[in-house]
Structures are given as structure tokens and as C-alpha cells.
């Protein structure tokens, strides 16, 4: 047996790399100094409020006229307020009211918003429409007026007010939950759960709620902060119950005495600011740790670095006399990316040549580095990629070390690109014509009118029946096959010498694929272009390529003419790949009356 156990080798590497990501969100949060500070402040405040009776023996409510505006002393560490109540006691007991009432607001908001969001998002239809209407209605109502009315007419309790506030902000929770549910309910794993016979309640608990969890925690922190602020505002207006100590009521009292004891304003203001700021910063840290690292990737220059020439003499020999018809000569190309504590090489010493009028196939499985090779030639790699080459000759000139503007002059004009997903490579908000015309005008220095005339001709050339209509259409108005024709027309519009096509037919139906390959073949012959075609499909290779390079784990394992590769593959990996193709497999014969197996006979 020569078939290497591909499945097995992949896991080993994947598993070790993934453990880092598996770290719990809490662990990641605790690595953020801001988050640690915020959590510390909030815990301290909570503990101080809860332990208020043990921390002070002063009564926060009972007034004592003898101690009106008493200065700081042994008995009153921060003095006493306008009616002689101890400031420290009021801060501590006020914390109890403020924090507990904020909890009420959060709980009500979630008790209303989460079920409504789950229900509306999962079942959609009429119920969803009614819920959406109700949520819009609540959001349209001015919150502070409702709160004032409730406190004036119903109850002066801060808890009641915060319950009402919870109701008023519940649409924000509803919207958040509903949006998460709508995005996850279309996932295939939810369909699979339905087919597995799970009840709706269980699907929601197991598959949908966990997705909602993370954004909800952030939302809760925000609502908590908002409700502390609103409480203070209401109490400051003098609407709170006189029997409840609260930070807002302290502000109110301090404001009345602002000329005689300005310092009284400082303490409640400080504590309110600390609480709301900690909550807001904590929410931010949570969001960051959920979305992963905040670090910006280290940017490498766009230039291809100097690398060692390949050690093998044969490749060097190939270069010794670069023949006139060699369009592209690459020697010892390397691409690597930063990973935890090192760099991972995805293209490892690739050398290849493309002659004028030649189609080179770059074949391999996913992860073989074939697309990375093509992208590095186009300069399309992400900024953290590091590219080096021993030699990178395009039409006899060294491309290594060319800056961005010099590369841009080559790219588009002399080196063109056809992508895998035609639709996602067209901007949906512009007409096809305007997208095609822009590079033509830039590279060819022609007027808009001339560009249009040229492009209409090309669209006709690539087999579009009604070029004028397509030219003024938007991408969503044409089919995938048509979009690929449009992109090919765009790619050849500046008369390139080299066309790099990355799986140009993989996303297309097989009948369309055949037509697109015919088109590429005829254009290539007509213009004597060099083509690099990246593909995983040996049928496509056999159809269009002259030479083939087979890639495996970043290296080229075999390069041969298409005839040799299929008739006498040299490398074991190539042979394994070729033997995996199903095209020549014998069809399965019709079912001979299969013995009917009873359902569970085989499970014993």
C-alpha cells in the first residue's frame, strides 16, 4: 500500500494548533489588564455594599439636625450631609439600592427580551411581525417621561422604576437575540438536529441559546451601566423614596448644599462614574476577548524579499539561459505566516517556469499551497505574509523588490487574474460596465468612450449575446457563468501576457465549466498568453493544460508535461491522487434483490 494516511496526519497537526484557541473566554478576559481592573472595582463595590452593616454603625436614613453638614471626623469619616446623615453610610447603603435596582432592570430586560427574541427569530411568521411591532412601539416611546409618570403616579420605589426601565430597554435585548437566532437557525446543524428528532425547546437550549449567550453578556453590562446612570438622574430630580438611601439622592442633597459643602457632590459622583465606567470598559473587554485578539498583524513590506536560490542544480540550469519565450521564471519561492511562537511555511521552495502560449496547471489538494503560490505571484497575500524568492523573473525583468506602484503597473496590465468565486469578485453596488472600465482607463490611458467600445467588443468575444445590456447591468442581474465570462473579459481587457486563474470553474456547473474552459483555451491561443491555472480537478488539467506541477504540503512534488503526467506519473503522491479519481471507476451494478434486513438486526 502506498496511499499515505492523509486523514490521520492532518489531525495531529490541527489538534496541537487548536488547543490555544480552545481556552475559555474567562481565561482570555483575565489576560486583559483593563478587564481585571474593572472586575476588581465592581467586586469591591458589591462587597462594600453587601457588607455595609458591618462596615459602619451609622444609620443612612435617620437625620440628625445637630450634625448638619458635620465636617470629617472620627465619627463621620467623610462628614455628614445637609440633614446630618453620615456620608459613608449613605454611600454604602446607597450602593445596595443602586446595584440591586440595576440588577432588577437587567433581569426584566432579559426576561422579556430573550424569550421574545428566541420565539420571534425561530418561528418567524405572524408572531415575529407582532413582536417586531411591539418592540418598535416601545422604542418610540420617550423613556424618561414614562419613568417620571410611573414614579409620580404609581410608586416611588427605585425598584419599580428600574423594572419599568427594564421593560423599556427590553427591545434592544429582543433585537440582539432575534438577530442571532435568525442567523443560526439557517445553519445546517439546526436542520440536522430537526432530522434527529429533537424538540424545538431542546434545539433552542442546545444549539441556539449558546450562540446568543456571549452578545447577551455584553448587552447586560451595558444595560447595568445605563440603569445606574438613570437611577441617579431620577433621584437627583427628587423623585426617589426618602426612605431609600441611593447615590442619586445623595447628589440631590449635595446639590442643595453646593455652596456650603461642595465636597458632598464629589463622593456620589465619583462612585457613580467609577461604576458606570467599569461596566462600559468591561463590556468592551468582553467584546474584544470574544472576537479574538486585538493585536494588529505585523505588516511586511509588499516587496518580495531576497531568498536563497534553490539548491538543486537542475532548476538553476534551467535559468542559466533564460530562453526568450520564458514569460515567468520563479526560483525557490517561499511564503510563511506568523503563528504562536514561530512562523509556518505554506509555500516551501517552489520553482516553476511558464512560457508564452503555455498553460501550466498547478494541482493539489486543499492546504497544498497552490493558491498561496498564485496569490504571491499576484501580490494578493495578506499583510502578515512574508514572501521570499531566489529569483522572480517576469519577461526577463526581476520582480523581486518591486514596490507597490511598480507591482500595480504589472498587475492588471501585464499579469491578469481570474478568481474562483466570480460573484464575490464583483461589487454589487456598481454596474458591470463601470467596474470593467476603471482599470482599462487607468492602464490603457483611454477615454471612457473608447474603454466602453473596447469592452463591448470583449464581452461579445467572451460569448455574451447582449453585451450592451450586460454592460449596464448590476452583478445580481446575471448568472454565475455569465459573471465569470465578464471577469475573463475584464482580465484580458488590458492585453495581459500572463493570466493567473485560481480554480476558475470550481464554483460553476459542469456544462458551464466546459464552456468557460473552451473560452480560456481559445483566448489563450489567440493571444499567445501564458496561463497559470490553479485547480484540484484532474479532468480540468487534462482538458486545458500543457504542463502540470503537482503540489503537496507547500512543495512541488512533480512537474511534467500533461501527457507524461497521466501516462507515467513518477511521484507516489501523484499516483495516489490519480488513482482516487472516480471518472473511470466501474459503475455500480443494479441492486440484486438485496436480502431485506430487519431494522436492528445488525446492532447487537
Amino acid at each position: 500500500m502506498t496511499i499515505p494516511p492523509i486523514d490521520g496526519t492532518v489531525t495531529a497537526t490541527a489538534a496541537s494548533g487548536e488547543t490555544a484557541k480552545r481556552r475559555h473566554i474567562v481565561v482570555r478576559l483575565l489576560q486583559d489588564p483593563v478587564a481585571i481592573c474593572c472586575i476588581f472595582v465592581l467586586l469591591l463595590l458589591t462587597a462594600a455594599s453587601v457588607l455595609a452593616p458591618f462596615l459602619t454603625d451609622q444609620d443612612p436614613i435617620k437625620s440628625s439636625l445637630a450634625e448638619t453638614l458635620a465636617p470629617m471626623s472620627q465619627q463621620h469619616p467623610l462628614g455628614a450631609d445637609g440633614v446630618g446623615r453620615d456620608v459613608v453610610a449613605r454611600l454604602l447603603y446607597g450602593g445596595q439600592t443602586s446595584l440591586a435596582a440595576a440588577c432588577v432592570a437587567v433581569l426584566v430586560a432579559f426576561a422579556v427580551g430573550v424569550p421574545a427574541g428566541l420565539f420571534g427569530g425561530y418561528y418567524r411568521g405572524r408572531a415575529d411581525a407582532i413582536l417586531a411591532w411591539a418592540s418598535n412601539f416601545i422604542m418610540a416611546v420617550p423613556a424618561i417621561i414614562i419613568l417620571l409618570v410611573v414614579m409620580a403616579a404609581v410608586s416611588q420605589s427605585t425598584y419599580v422604576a428600574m423594572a419599568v426601565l427594564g421593560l423599556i430597554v427590553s427591545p434592544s435585548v429582543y433585537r440582539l437575540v432575534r438577530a442571532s437566532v435568525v442567523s443560526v437557525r439557517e445553519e445546517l446543524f439546526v436542520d440536522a438536529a430537526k432530522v434527529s428528532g429533537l424538540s424545538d425547546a431542546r434545539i433552542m437550549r442546545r444549539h441556539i441559546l449558546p450562540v446568543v449567550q456571549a452578545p447577551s453578556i455584553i448587552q447586560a453590562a451595558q444595560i447595568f451601566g445605563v440603569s445606574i446612570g438613570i437611577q441617579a438622574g431620577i433621584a437627583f430630580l427628587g423623585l426617589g423614596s426618602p426612605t431609600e438611601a441611593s447615590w442619586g439622592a445623595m447628589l440631590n442633597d449635595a446639590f442643595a448644599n453646593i455652596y456650603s459643602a461642595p465636597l458632598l457632590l464629589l463622593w456620589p459622583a465619583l462612585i457613580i462614574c467609577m461604576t458606570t465606567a467599569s461596566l462600559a470598559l468591561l463590556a468592551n473587554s468582553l467584546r474584544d476577548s470574544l472576537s479574538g485578539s486585538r493585536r494588529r498583524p505585523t505588516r511586511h513590506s509588499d516587496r518580495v524579499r531576497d531568498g536563497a536560490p534553490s539548491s538543486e542544480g537542475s532548476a538553476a540550469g534551467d535559468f542559466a539561459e533564460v530562453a526568450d519565450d520564458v514569460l515567468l521564471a520563479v526560483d525557490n519561492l517561499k511564503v510563511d505566516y506568523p503563528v504562536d511562537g514561530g512562523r509556518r511555511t505554506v509555500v516551501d521552495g517552489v520553482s516553476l517556469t511558464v512560457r508564452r502560449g503555455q498553460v501550466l496547471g498547478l494541482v493539489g489538494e486543499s492546504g497544498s499551497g497552490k493558491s498561496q503560490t498564485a496569490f504571491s505571484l499576484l501580490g494578493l497575500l495578506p499583510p502578515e505574509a512574508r514572501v521570499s524568492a531566489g529569483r522572480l523573473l517576469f519577461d526577463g525583468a526581476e520582480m523581486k523588490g518591486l514596490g507597490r506602484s511598480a507591482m500595480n503597473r504589472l498587475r492588471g496590465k501585464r499579469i491578469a487574474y481570474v478568481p474562483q468565486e466570480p460573484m464575490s469578485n464583483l461589487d454589487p453596488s456598481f454596474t458591470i460596465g463601470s467596474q470593467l472600465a476603471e482599470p482599462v482607463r487607468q492602464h490603457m490611458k483611454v477615454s471612457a468612450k473608447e474603454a466602453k467600445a473596447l469592452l463591448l467588443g470583449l464581452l461579445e468575444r467572451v460569448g455574451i449575446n447582449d453585451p450592451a445590456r450586460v454592460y449596464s447591468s448590476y452583478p445580481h442581474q446575471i448568472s454565475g457563468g455569465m459573471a465569470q465570462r465578464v471577469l475573463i473579459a475584464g482580465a484580458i481587457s488590458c492585453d495581459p501576457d500572463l493570466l493567473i486563474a485560481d480554480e476558475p470553474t470550481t464554483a460553476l456547473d459542469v456544462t458551464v465549466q466546459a464552456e468557460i474552459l473552451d473560452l480560456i483555451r481559445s483566448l489563450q491561443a489567440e493571444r499567445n498568453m501564458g496561463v497559470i491555472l490553479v485547480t484540484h480537478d484532474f479532468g480540468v488539467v487534462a482538458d486545458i493544460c500543457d504542463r502540470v506541477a503537482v503540489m503537496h504540503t507547500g512543495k512541488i512534488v512533480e512537474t511534467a508535461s500533461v501527457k507524461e503526467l497521466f501516462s507515467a506519473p513518477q511521484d507516489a503522491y501523484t499516483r495516489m491522487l490519480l488513482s482516487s479519481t472516480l471518472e473511470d471507476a466501474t459503475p455500480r451494478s443494479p441492486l440484486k434483490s438485496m436480502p431485506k434486513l430487519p431494522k436492528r438486526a445488525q446492532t447487537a
Partner: protein
Amino acid sequence: MIASVEVPAESHNGSDGPLLSIENVTVQYPSKKWRSPDFLALKGVSLDIRAGETVGLVGESGSGKTTLGRAVLGLAPVTTGLIRYDGQVISAMNRNQRRSLSDEIQVVFQDPYTSLNPALTVLDILTEPLLTAGTRRAEAEQRVKDLLEQVHLPRDASNRLPREFSGGQRQRIAIARALCRDPRLIVCDEPVSALDLSNQSRVLDLFIEIQERTGVSYLFVTHDLSVVRYISHRVAVMYKGEIIETGDAAKVTTQPKEAYTQKLLLAAPVPDPARQASRRAARQKFSAKLHVAGPFENPAS
């Protein structure tokens, strides 16, 4: 080996009836735009699947092949027509009645990346259908070990998350989930399209191996004629919401009768430069001929 043949059959539906029978099924989606006509995804499709049989459903994008699979699973609404499973009409069932079918009909989806919940471990994914059915946890965990072995995954796979596996391995996990409750029919919706070539043939071999051992039937939806030829006993070709040709795999995928199937076959490239050149020539000749005869408006006629 399992001496399955000696166990007497206990199928509910007599001797010769098909396991699944799709009778003149139409699926219609209301149009999103006001007053424009509704979209007919399926236009009166009929198809039978016998016990132990693989029926390949092949067609291009938009042909309705996936919709037919989803209709069988109860995930697409059947507007008219009937789907019978083991003699029982299942096309008009509601969600709750449908849940009783979960140990009869199962599914393997195309994309092994989105069909497994990324937050659950393999053990959780695989025990879930069993626990729902009332199996005890210890028993379910033992069953998962057996299943992992059946799909040739290492036993220690159960404590890992889906993202730690390659595409081919994920698809094996999805297959194990489908096998959990010993279904008699599995709807496979493009289960190998997202896989690399070498994994593709291995996963197909696994499907065949499981079928030969358990006698499960497959409705195998794919766009790839070579896949369908390899795995199917019978093949149905879909075009614009209709089945235009059915027959034995060897016949339909090598000498098709219908012009559209011929076009599909000629468009699929062969991994052999010389033969591909002649197939290409044949295709170009064929489409030139069709061009004269008119476009594919009604290939069924």
C-alpha cells in the same frame, strides 16, 4: 460477520413495496415580490427507493435536486403530491409527528463545516440524537465508541471539537451522527462535494461499506456524474424541477438517452488528455447540433 440473511425480515410493507415512494410531488415557494408568480422548485416529481438501494439524484444548480431531498426530510413544504415511507404518508406530517421518524430517516449534509455545531464536542454531537430517543447516557457513550470505529475515526475523537478535524473527518462525524439511530434511509445532500479528491473516494467507500453491512438505503444528491456512477444502483437526472431520465447507473451515466444527460456527460472532463480531447470534440459537435435544433427548452419532450 453478521449473519443478517438468516434473520427473518420484518418489514411493515409486505415483500415488494418500495421503502420510499415519492408520488407526483410539487414544491412551490411563494414569490417574494408582490404579484409575481410563485417559484416552482419541483414540478410533479415521482421516484421510488427500495430497501438497500442507492438512488443517485443528479442535476445542476437550480435543478431542484436538493429541494427533493429536503422534502423527504420534511424540511421543504410539499405543496401537492405524496411522499410515502414504508407505506405511511409522511409528506403531510407536522413537526411533532415527524419526530417519530427520526430513527427511520437521517441526513448527511454537503458542508461538514456548518452541519456540525462548532460549540459541541464530537461526543455531544453524537449522543444528542440518542439521548433524545431516551437512551441512557452510559449506553449512548458506548454506542458512540462503536460508531466512531464504524466510520474509521480514532476513539479519542469524542472529546474534541469539530474544528480540530479535517473536512473528510468531519464528514465521517456527520455520517456517524446519521447512523446513530440505525436509520433505514439516509438522504445524502452532496456529501462529498466539499472534500478533497483522495478523501472523496474514501468517504464514498465508507458509504458503500455501511450499506453492505446494514442494508440502509441512500437518496444520494450530487452534481457529479462520476460520484453518482460510483455509488448509485439507479440514477435519476433532474432538470428545472423535473426528473427527465431514470435508469440503472451504468446505463444513465454511460449511454444516456436524453439529450440533456448526454450534454452533462460530455461536459464532465476525463482525467486523460487524449480521451478528453475526443470528448471535447464530441461535445462541441453535439452542442453545435443542438444549437441548430434549438436551445434546451424542454429536454423531456
